């Protein structure tokens, strides 16, 4: 059996889905589309049934891709749980009536029941049930209230194929709302006041700035703490690595353990598969990945991001994008791969191209950022600031240029801003786990590959050959030693490993800043490259790549002159 969860956006559908299903959730694209949906399993009596979180829609009419997919999925489902928001009955019921028309067994979860109570909204469940002809169960997905009852009522799901025209639907909804809903005026709650304050520019912009700065420090604090713990744990591993180092020799030792620094293993510089190859991803990068995605999950699930998107909409329109394009940028700060994937939320190809290109060029991923911090920290935070300020300026200038050069315009913003909600903590942790798992499985193999490739490139002498050819650019224009070319090559596999490779080169501060900036801009890592290629297509990817290389040479030379 296949159960479909259907409803408007921002009605707590995903939280309900988290409640119903176990840990094994699969996120995939609907065949032939870029629309994502979630699939999970649930125990119903003795049976294991499939639960699908259908993309949120307001209607079944084909307004966007989400509706087209929802209609297709509807045909493949056996039972519908229509999730509706009790604080917004009227709007939600339109989809409910459309779903009833499809003549499938259906049950209604009247979610956000507690919120409705707080807002002074009273709904007569019995009457609503009678008018709709299907069971209606009040639920609070956040706390779990009513979920058991909802599950036990699944077998009582009913069909009630009432067919109405559009106008008749609204008239019927008007009648339902009038009969079942009573609203008592209540004073604004704290969250409601906060909702208004964070969307008005005069208060919203300062608050938004504080939230972003605060997020940065929380990410850094959690990241540093975790990093210290993981680093400590490596103390127990060092004897094993030393023992291996003593018993291996030649090429194998070179690859697995790497170069000893002052007679000892240096986890950041030795560049062996079993030293740097596991230390960098686990003790340097993973802590920041975890802390970044944790904070991002809180921002997402509280409903803050659409507000941020509205506040920055004006600026982003100057760069040829919607306010919502802030989401690929933020996600890109974690890892450029999900950043590239999330450009799909933008409607037009032009917007997706600009967003993907800007993200790939100017948004460093957390793996790289963590390494930049690790290497430049001794020089102080101001120096690190130069890199990020440069990237931000590139982002702005390039965005304005692209917006003026590329034909076409940016469609207008039109989006719902959901109310603030306390995030469902288990849901946040589940998402964090999925994303961290994604990082471990996608990134670790590439770290190994990167370290391996670097060793092979060195021992075979390929590096010195390439270094000779490209030395005019690297040495003359960018002011870097020609050995730095190795880092640029490995940067295609993993940027964090590449930043690490700068360490043994004994660069001065200026060279380090230039090298770190160039490593961000010149080309995405292979995982991002493959994703971008799929998302943009080969033609746009080539365009994007040309922009990347030209920008990196220009910016690198510029920094080399002024610093």
């Amino acid at each position: 059996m296949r159960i479909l969860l259907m409803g408007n956006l921002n009605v707590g559908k995903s939280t309900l889905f988290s409640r119903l299903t176990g840990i094994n959730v699969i996120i995939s694209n609907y065949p032939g589309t870029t629309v994502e949906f979630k699939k999970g399993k649930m125990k119903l009596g003795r049976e294991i049934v499939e639960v699908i979180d259908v993309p949120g829609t307001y209607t079944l009419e084909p307004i966007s891709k989400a509706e087209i997919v929802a209609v297709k999925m509807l045909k493949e489902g056996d039972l519908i749980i229509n999730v509706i928001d009790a604080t917004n009955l009227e709007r939600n019921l339109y989809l409910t009536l459309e779903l009833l028309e499809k003549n499938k067994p259906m049950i209604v979860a009247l979610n956000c029941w507690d919120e409705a109570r707080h807002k002074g909204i009273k709904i007569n469940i019995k009457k609503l049930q009678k008018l709709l002809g299907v069971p209606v169960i009040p639920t609070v997905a956040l706390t779990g209230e009513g979920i058991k009852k909802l599950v036990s009522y699944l077998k009582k799901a009913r069909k009630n194929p009432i067919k109405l025209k559009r106008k008749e639907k609204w008239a019927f909804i008007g009648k339902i709302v009038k009969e079942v809903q009573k609203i008592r005026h209540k004073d604004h709650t704290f969250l409601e006041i906060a909702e208004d304050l964070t969307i008005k520019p005069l208060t919203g912009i300062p608050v938004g700035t504080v939230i972003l700065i605060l997020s940065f420090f929380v990410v850094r604090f959690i990241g540093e703490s975790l990093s210290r713990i993981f680093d400590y744990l490596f103390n127990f591993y060092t004897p094993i690595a030393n023992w291996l180092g003593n018993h291996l020799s030649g090429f194998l030792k070179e690859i697995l353990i790497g170069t000893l620094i002052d007679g000892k293993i240096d986890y950041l510089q030795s560049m062996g598969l079993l030293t740097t190859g596991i230390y960098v991803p686990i003790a340097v990068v993973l802590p920041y990945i975890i802390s970044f995605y944790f904070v991002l999950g809180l921002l997402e699930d509280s409903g803050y991001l659409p507000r941020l998107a509205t506040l920055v909409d004006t600026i982003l329109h100057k760069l040829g994008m919607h306010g919502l394009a802030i989401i690929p940028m933020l996600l890109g700060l974690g890892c450029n791969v999900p950043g590239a994937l999330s450009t799909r939320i933008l409607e037009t190809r032009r917007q997706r191209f600009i967003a993907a290109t800007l993200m790939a060029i100017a948004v460093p991923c957390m793996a790289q950022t963590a390494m930049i911090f690790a290497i430049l920290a001794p020089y102080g935070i101001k120096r690190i600031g130069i890199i990020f300020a440069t990237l931000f300026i590139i982002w702005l200038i390039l965005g304005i240029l692209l917006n003026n050069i590329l034909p076409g315009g940016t469609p207008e913003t039109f989006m719902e801003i959901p109310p603030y909600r306390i995030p469902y903590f288990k849901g946040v942790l589940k998402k964090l786990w999925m994303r961290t798992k994604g990082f471990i499985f996608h990134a670790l193999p590439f770290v190994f590959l990167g370290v391996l490739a670097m060793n092979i490139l060195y021992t075979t002498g390929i590096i010195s050959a390439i270094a000779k050819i490209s030395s005019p650019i690297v040495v003359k224009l960018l002011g870097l030693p020609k050995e730095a070319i190795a880092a640029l090559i490995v940067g295609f596999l993993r940027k964090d490993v590449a930043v690490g490779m700068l360490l043994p080169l004994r660069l001065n501060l200026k060279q380090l800043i230039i090298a770190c900036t160039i490593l961000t801009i010149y080309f995405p890592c292979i995982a991002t490259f493959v994703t971008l290629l799929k998302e943009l297509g080969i033609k746009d990817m080539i365009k994007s790549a040309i922009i990347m290389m030209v920008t990196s040479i220009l910016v690198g030379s510029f920094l080399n002159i002024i610093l």
Partner: protein
Amino acid sequence: MEISLINLPEGKKAVIKKLEGGREFLRKLEALNIRVGKIIKKITGQPFRGPIVIEVDNTKVAIGRGMAMRIYVEPEK
């Protein structure tokens, strides 16, 4: 007196009187329950021709200026 949503003062409630635009535009509005006869409240407008934020029932919606211009309302007294 009908005025464009753009000219509605901040914090003021109004009844929607007329929506001008193509079928797709109207459907988009309707999906979010922005229909003739509904009462809406203007929460704010973002500076430098940024989007207008309105409240309809218990939902807030950000609407680009060009779209907001085509929504005509009558302010509540």
